[in-house]
């Protein structure tokens, strides 16, 4: 069972701090009432008259030339409305805009495979029919003539001299590379007493597998030339700028509508190719079409997390365990297409030093394409890989130098008094006290009784180990970091929009630009609004979901990258402050006093001096909307306030790869205890503690929920979840048969704790949070290494360690030890 410990820091009440009220309370979620009754509206719940069902014909080959696609038999099949092939797509659309600088920039990515298929499951053609079943029947009648080509199923082979090239347009599989160097490596290694070398570490391919897969219902309005896309894409702002140019239409022709989304975790950002295919089909067939992605389709083709190798790592360490710096090469496997990549090539840099004070860092980032599903953001996107790597360094160094991992961390953690802390690459860690968090975590796990627990486990024939994972969840991107990938890009900063209005009957209506997938935006937004307007959260109606027609969105609108608590609520607060000002102004005109004399409370605007003189919100709404004769001409009040929140960012220095890449840094410290059966390598996480610091918490229960959920995903990723391919490029874990996610009985007891270090950079002291699961992946890796240390000191080098990998470490520890060496500095 889970339990909670809270160590509340005195919250610095700053300018703009909301008054004590609903914020900080566990108010019940507004979303729940519909969801527990099965009355949520997910994309697949929406139906239209005469709609057709889309089924994609997918490549069974990982790499093959497409000689021909013959849809004639499919078209003759009863119930079939029509088809679409790559050849049509190549005529009707332009390739998707590429984020990458050359050679990645040269990729020609269409919504269906054109000329060549590059991974198993890649959509090659689409069929639309009157039922789901008939669409699939007909898809089997589409005759595709493939000429199989050699396959790259391991990124480390992608750069070989005789390696097949996936994209002739790029001419190489190395689609993006960048050298990042800060500080003085030579000096660091000269100062070092020890140099710990690690030949290779590997972060596995997996993703968060939201329970609802991707899909959309797409309608085309022939009169206006506009598409309505009812979907679960979680970043419509991005989808629109990818789709519009490709489809040769203005963005206003693409109306995105979402309500409830069955989980996203980043995996629903890159569905734009399939959405384009649906748009083309809806227009061609003159009817609404619905695409529902099934689980096996999702695993085969959508949004894997970045697989990454860290090669030839060298760490400069002092005798006492002080870390000076490291150099490494990160080889990143993007899969077959760059659908959001190569942004992963810079996103990691938000947390360059992890939680540690080392100043001298060099990382050579190489991203290659392979015959696997394209990667996309996945909860903890790109930082998770890098933070796992820095944590691995800590434990391997401690392991090899005979130091205590707890001590090494405490010695090297950035200190509370150093906050805000500028990292070697110019990121500003806003606040936090990592050592204290570690103490809370160790206390929760009963660190003092560790030795007793080991002995007890031994008596049961088990090997017990404890491991720590400390990570940062960097939230609110500065999109200017994309310029470190491609200086030509004209992106920087960030934004989110909210509109708050007071309606004719005094109803407060809040419209967000975000696309929540379980993050409780309707609830937390209402808490912020109610506190500012002095009313109850029940008086606040937050519209569910996102609709471009509401005009309450901007270029970066969506729900991704840990930012709602900052950008989303920042926009809500901004719009609500504007509305409050207008309400005061209007009331002051009516009551004949100065706006400063008006206070908003109990659902009224009233004179501070004389609360009897009060106007209920309904009166204010009615006056502006329906009874405005005689109001002063110059009264600038609409009671409908749209606010665009813009975090304070400058574009980074492209030359030095230097600048603040994210606004807030929530911290997580997780501790795992595992017990291994040495006879089999089978192990169990028997105890677990997760401590989180995301600054001011608007709704602690919601924050807690994010922590628990991220932890469960981490445990899955650490133990069983991996997208493994064979040498022919077949995915060996294409659905829940072989891709095992945690079920209820797999969950260890989890004790949670938190401290609150408000962010000095955000309007409410909040920080984005929710992507902190990475800590758990490392905690398990470290616990396994600790438990195995009595069995030949094997080194854990994979992020995912299913039983067979633990068995390999048990039966041949030397093989893993070959990867590390310690030399005098």
């Amino acid at each position, binding site marked *: 069972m889970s339990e909670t410990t809270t160590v509340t820091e005195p919250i610095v009440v700053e300018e703009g701090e909301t008054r004590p009220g609903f914020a900080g309370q566990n108010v019940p979620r507004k979303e729940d009432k519909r969801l527990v009754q099965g009355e949520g509206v997910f994309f697949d719940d929406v139906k239209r008259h005469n709609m057709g069902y889309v089924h994609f014909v997918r490549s069974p080959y990982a790499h093959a030339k497409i000689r021909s696609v013959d849809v004639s038999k499919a078209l003759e099949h009863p119930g079939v409305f029509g088809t679409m092939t790559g050849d049509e797509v190549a005529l009707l659309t332009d390739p998707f805009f590429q984020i990458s600088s050359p050679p990645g920039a040269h990729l020609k990515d269409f919504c269906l495979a054109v000329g060549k298929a590059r991974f198993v499951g890649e959509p090659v053609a689409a069929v639309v029919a009157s039922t*789901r079943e008939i669409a699939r029947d007909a898809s089997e009648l589409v005759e595709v003539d493939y000429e199989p080509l050699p396959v790259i199923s391991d990124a480390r082979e992608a750069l070989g001299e005789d390696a097949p090239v996936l994209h002739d347009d790029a001419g190489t599989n190395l689609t993006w590379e960048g050298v990042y160097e800060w500080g003085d490596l030579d000096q660091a290694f000269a100062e070092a007493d020890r140099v710990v070398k690690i030949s290779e570490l590997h972060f596995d391919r997996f993703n968060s597998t939201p329970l609802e897969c991707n899909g959309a219902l797409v309608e085309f309005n022939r009169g206006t030339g506009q598409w309505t896309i009812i979907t679960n894409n979680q970043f419509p702002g991005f989808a629109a700028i990818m789709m519009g140019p490709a489809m040769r239409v203005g963005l206003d022709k693409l109306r995105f509508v979402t309500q409830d989304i069955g989980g996203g975790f980043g995996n629903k950002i890159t569905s734009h190719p399939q959405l384009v295919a649906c748009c083309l089909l809806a227009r061609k067939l003159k009817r609404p079409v619905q695409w529902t992605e099934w689980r096996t389709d999702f695993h085969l083709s959508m949004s894997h997390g970045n697989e990454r190798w860290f090669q030839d790592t060298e760490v400069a360490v002092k005798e006492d365990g002080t870390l000076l710096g490291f150099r490494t090469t990160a080889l990143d496997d993007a899969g077959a297409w760059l659908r959001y990549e190569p942004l992963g090539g810079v996103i990691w840099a938000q947390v360059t030093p992890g939680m540690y004070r080392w100043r001298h860092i060099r990382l050579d980032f190489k991203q290659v394409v392979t015959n696997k599903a394209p990667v996309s953001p996945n909860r903890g996107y790109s930082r998770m890989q890098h933070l796992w790597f820095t944590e691995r360094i800590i434990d391997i160094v401690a392991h090899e130098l005979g130091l205590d991992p707890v001590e090494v961390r405490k010695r090297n953690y950035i200190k509370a008094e150093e906050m805000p802390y500028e990292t070697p690459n110019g990121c500003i860690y806003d606040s936090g006290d990592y050592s204290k968090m570690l103490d809370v975590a160790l206390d929760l796990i009963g660190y003092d009784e560790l030795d007793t627990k080991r002995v007890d486990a031994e008596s049961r024939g088990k090997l017990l180990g404890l491991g720590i994972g400390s990570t940062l969840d960097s939230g609110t991107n500065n999109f200017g970091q994309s310029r470190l990938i491609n200086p030509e890009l004209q992106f920087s900063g960030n934004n989110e929009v909210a509109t708050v209005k007071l309606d004719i009957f005094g109803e407060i209506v809040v419209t967000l630009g975000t696309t929540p997938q379980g993050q409780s935006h309707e609830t937390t937004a209402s808490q912020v609004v109610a506190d500012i307007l002095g009313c109850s959260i029940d008086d606040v109606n937050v519209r569910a979901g996102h609709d471009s027609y509401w005009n309450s969105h901007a270029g970066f609108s969506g729900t991704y990258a840990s930012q709602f608590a900052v950008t989303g609520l920042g926009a809500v607060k901004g719009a609500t402050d504007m509305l409050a000002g207008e309400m005061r102004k209007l009331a002051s005109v009516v009551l004949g006093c100065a706006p400063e004399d008006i206070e908003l409370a109990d659902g009224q605007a009233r004179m501070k001096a004389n609360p009897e003189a009060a106007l209920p919100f309904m009166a204010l709404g009615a006056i502006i909307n329906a009874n405005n004769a005689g109001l002063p001409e110059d009264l600038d009040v609409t009671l409908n306030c749209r606010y665009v929140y813009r975090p304070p960012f400058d574009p980074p220095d492209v030359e030095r790869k230097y600048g603040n890449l994210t606004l807030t840094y929530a911290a997580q410290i997780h501790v795992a205890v595992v017990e291994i059966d040495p006879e089999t390598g089978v192990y169990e996480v028997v105890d677990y503690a997760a401590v989180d610091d995301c600054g001011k918490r608007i709704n602690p229960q919601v924050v807690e929920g994010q922590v628990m959920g991220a932890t469960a995903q981490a445990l899955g990723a650490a133990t*069983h979840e991996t997208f493994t391919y064979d040498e022919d490029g077949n995915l060996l874990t294409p659905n829940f048969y*072989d891709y095992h996610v945690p079920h209820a009985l797999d969950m260890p007891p989890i004790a949670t704790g938190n401290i609150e270090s408000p962010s000095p950079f955000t309007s409410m002291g909040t920080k984005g949070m929710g992507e902190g699961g990475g800590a758990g992946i490392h905690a398990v890796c470290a616990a396994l290494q600790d438990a195995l240390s009595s069995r030949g000191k094997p080194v854990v080098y994979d992020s995912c360690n299913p*039983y067979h990998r633990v068995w390999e470490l048990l039966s041949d520890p030397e093989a893993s030890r070959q990867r590390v060496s310690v030399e005098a500095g």
Partner: protein
Amino acid sequence: MLLSEVGYARPATLEQALGVLAEHTGGRALAGGQTLINVMKARAASPDVLVDLSGIPELKGIELGPDGTLQLGPMTTYTELIASPEARARPILGEVCAQIADVQVRNRGTIGGNLCSSDPTNHLPPLMVAIGAELTITGADGERTVPAEEFFLGVYMTAAGPGELLTKITIPAGRSDGFASVPIGVDGTCIVNAAASANGEIRVALGCVGAVPELVKPASGEAEAVREAVRGSGIDPPGDVHASADYRRHLAEVVAIRAVEQASKRARE
């Protein structure tokens, strides 16, 4: 997720069922469907006709004979077996069924379906082989009974051939049994499993190491004897994403020993 077109019949008697199967060579019996429907969703196999056996009373039920022999109707669900007082005569049956998948699957899935689907990772094929169950197959030309070790012919293939049905499972008396496995997560698919019986001679059946359960008969219940027997069995386990052939071979030894330990312990009680 979407099945190919298929015919469906729900006969009320065994005779009718055999009749339909005789008429439709591409037909297939549908028991609980917890394997078959999934295979059809993947279109990895597409029978022309499904003969739903759920309407046939004589295929259900559990009977305990005076000599302690159990007779299980193949359409008995895992849940029914777990709840059955008669089935406790052979405790291992309920214990193993309780480890299969989850409540929903146990509510629909049947003993006969588990055996006839003969998925190499299923729990019951090795169990039936170890405890010496006998399986009665009925076809157009009458009944025959085969020992479990002769029933399983391959992945999804059993001695119950086209036009035939498994109609009865006979379990001899005995209590000294064991079962051990290494699943992927709690109650997950087995990476390897083994069932053992120590009622008289020691019989161990290994699962997940080949297309069908591998029966080995160690000289004694001693760990070393069991290990030797498994090594001597010449199993050639498949390697997959969960276990290499070597790891599986090793696990087979471990779970065999553990299953025998459990069985022997009960024999001593």
